[in-house]
């Protein structure tokens, strides 16, 4: 665990973080009360870490009353998987790992089939298959409305048809704190308890609550392929190199975690949470710009959501 987590941090939760926390806890409890088979999508990132802490709080003194589902593309950073196994065991979570093994067997990887097809097979298909296999009727996700344009209109309870797809025209209005949990057989919902959180809220909360996160978020010297503005991880051997390209040691960190070939790092000296927050405030780019996937085509997040992705 990086030093930053063990630093004495006596930061009290601000009023607005308390309000966000209470709202998220309320949402989680509604889901557990009204759905038969909830599950939490656990992506190992900072938002998932916050979700887990909120779930611990919501059901205390009981255990988290649903399993955690990780869709493993097999291309995640090694440190993510290590963190996942250690942390989930530590908090006594029930972890289910699902991989689209057929697609992996066919050799699916981003440089062979393209990022869009790769995400489609390993993430979206993997997720839909895992949800169907578990017969889950509600799946928690860590998405926030401030992440991306099409998310700004996302509901807290996002209805999905039997194929897991999202119809942006057919969303139910959400008023007050009243959540409509009615679904028909085969339908399900995605639930976003962090809807009203911003990236800075998430970091501030992690800081105040001293929640462990994957060390990849903290700046450190890492071996990277430097290509223009992009810093690409060398973890997967299939990432093609341009002529003469050699990995270099670069002080950098990840702003969001995904598959190593498709998640760019940013040059950064931010090795503590306060420095990360400071960096974010100054940053002009939203975090998702660093994920290659969103740039495949205009509105690609909306497309992916319609197809069943979070």
């Amino acid at each position, binding site marked *: 665990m990086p030093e930053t987590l063990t630093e004495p941090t006596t930061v009290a939760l*601000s*009023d*607005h973080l308390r309000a966000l926390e209470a709202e998220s806890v309320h949402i989680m409890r509604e889901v557990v009360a009204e759905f038969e088979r909830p599950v939490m999508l656990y992506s190992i990132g900072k938002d998932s870490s916050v979700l887990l802490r909120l779930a611990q709080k919501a*059901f205390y003194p009981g255990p988290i009353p649903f399993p955690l589902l990780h869709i493993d593309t097999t291309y995640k950073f090694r440190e993510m998987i290590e963190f996942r196994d250690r942390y989930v065991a530590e908090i006594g979570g029930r972890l289910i790992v699902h991989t689209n093994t057929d697609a992996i067997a066919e050799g699916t990887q981003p440089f062979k089939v393209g990022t869009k097809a790769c995400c489609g097979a390993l993430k979206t298909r993997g997720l839909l298959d895992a949800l169907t296999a578990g017969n889950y009727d509600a799946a928690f996700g860590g998405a926030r409305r401030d992440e991306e344009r099409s998310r700004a209109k996302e509901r807290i309870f996002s209805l999905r048809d039997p194929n897991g797809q999202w119809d942006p025209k057919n969303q139910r*209005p959400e008023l007050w704190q009243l959540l409509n949990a009615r679904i028909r057989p085969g339908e399900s919902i995605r639930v976003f308890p962090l809807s009203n959180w911003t990236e800075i809220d998430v970091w501030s909360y992690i800081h105040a609550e001293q929640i462990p996160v994957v060390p990849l978020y903290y700046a450190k010297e890492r071996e990277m392929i430097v290509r223009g503005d992009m810093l690409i991880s060398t973890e997967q051997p299939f990432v093609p190199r341009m002529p003469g390209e050699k990995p270099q040691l670069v002080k950098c960190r990840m702003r969001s975690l995904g598959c190593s070939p498709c998640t760019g790092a940013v040059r950064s000296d931010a090795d503590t949470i306060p420095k990360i927050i400071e960096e974010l405030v100054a940053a002009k780019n939203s975090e998702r710009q660093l994920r290659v996937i969103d740039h495949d085509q205009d509105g690609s997040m909306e497309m992916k959501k319609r197809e069943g992705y979070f």
Partner: protein
Amino acid sequence: MADLLRICTAGSVDDGKSTLIGRLLYDSRSVYEDQLHSVKKASKNRTAGPIDFSLFTDGLRAEREQGITIDVAYRYFATARRKFILADTPGHEQYTRNMATGASTADVAILLVDARHGVRVQSRRHAQIARLLGIHHFVLAVNKMDLMEFDRAVFDGIVDEFRTILPGANLHAIPISALHGDNVITESERTPWFKGQSLLEFLETVEVARDADTKPFRMAVQLVARPTHEFRGYAGQILSGIVHPGDLVTSWPSGRSSKVKRIVTWDGDLDMAKAGQSVTLTLEDELDTSRGDMLTIGDIEVGQRVRADVVWMDERPLDPGRLYLLKHSTRMVTAEVDHGLELNQIGSVTLSLARPIMFDHYSANRFTGSFILIDPTTNFTSGAGMIAEGLHVRGANAAARTGAAERLARLARTAPSDAEAVDAVRRALEELLS
């Protein structure tokens, strides 16, 4: 960052809402940045014009062309003083539904008008919906003042007219130019006659009545936590008021009371919990409380007939010949209505419920006074209701009787065997009649 302010915005197409929001998001970030780094005021380029701020948000027009939802969008920004959640409600098409959704959680409504057009029918309607949804603080942003040469008479005329629409409301009117930034973040030199605060300053400092703590204690039970045989806790978010260990709380509809033993949270037991907090209460006595029940200090209205203002949001009209599902706090009941409503219509409706609900008037408590109506066929959230009064609310005795009947039915249903059911019901009856 001190606290959280929830805002909703409304305006007709082309009044400049995207431009204004873009500017708030963009400029407030620079305010935040400045203050964080304690650098000098960056007011110079804040009033610069050429950036197209509407691109910074969304450009609803583009969305409409692509056939994407015209829907409430949520935006987030922060200054060193406050964090803001802004519900951006498109001012056309489904505007009644969008406005009601945005306003249902807002503390402040920003109503935008184009100085050239003055108050239009739609502005009037937006203001009335926001008011109906319980908003007390209004910002009237008179935009495009640059096109009217910042003429005071134009501004005053619009403000006077608006005051007649919202009599008695806290109305903070500001002459602005969203495009050029006048009076948005900083006060403009071009309106020397205007002595009020800029929009952002107002939002940073407006004192919204956070009186939820001073109201009677109410908590709707979401879940009964039973991790072990010894522990039985009632989990919920406190809707209003304050509670301490030792307080006598009543569980409705049964009307039975007990003292609070502990206020349990992951962060440790609390000496006190107040409106907005999500907690778990344990009680000294077993009250047979379950999800959908309400814990209160003191009385609450319990009834099966209410009159409410209902906003209808579904293309299928409200039909007095059909049954609907009504969700109020954590309780779902079947409801019938006395007359219909069309899409986007707002009307006063009398509802008859299959089981009682525990409520306050919406004007007294937003959370115990509101409900949604769900169409059981489509499961759509078709209506939003604000309770104006309870009808034939019987006395506390009768309320307790209704509660007792429910409790007996539950005891009978949940008993593991017929013999135990009979036994449980007999004991409960004896207790009631003693």
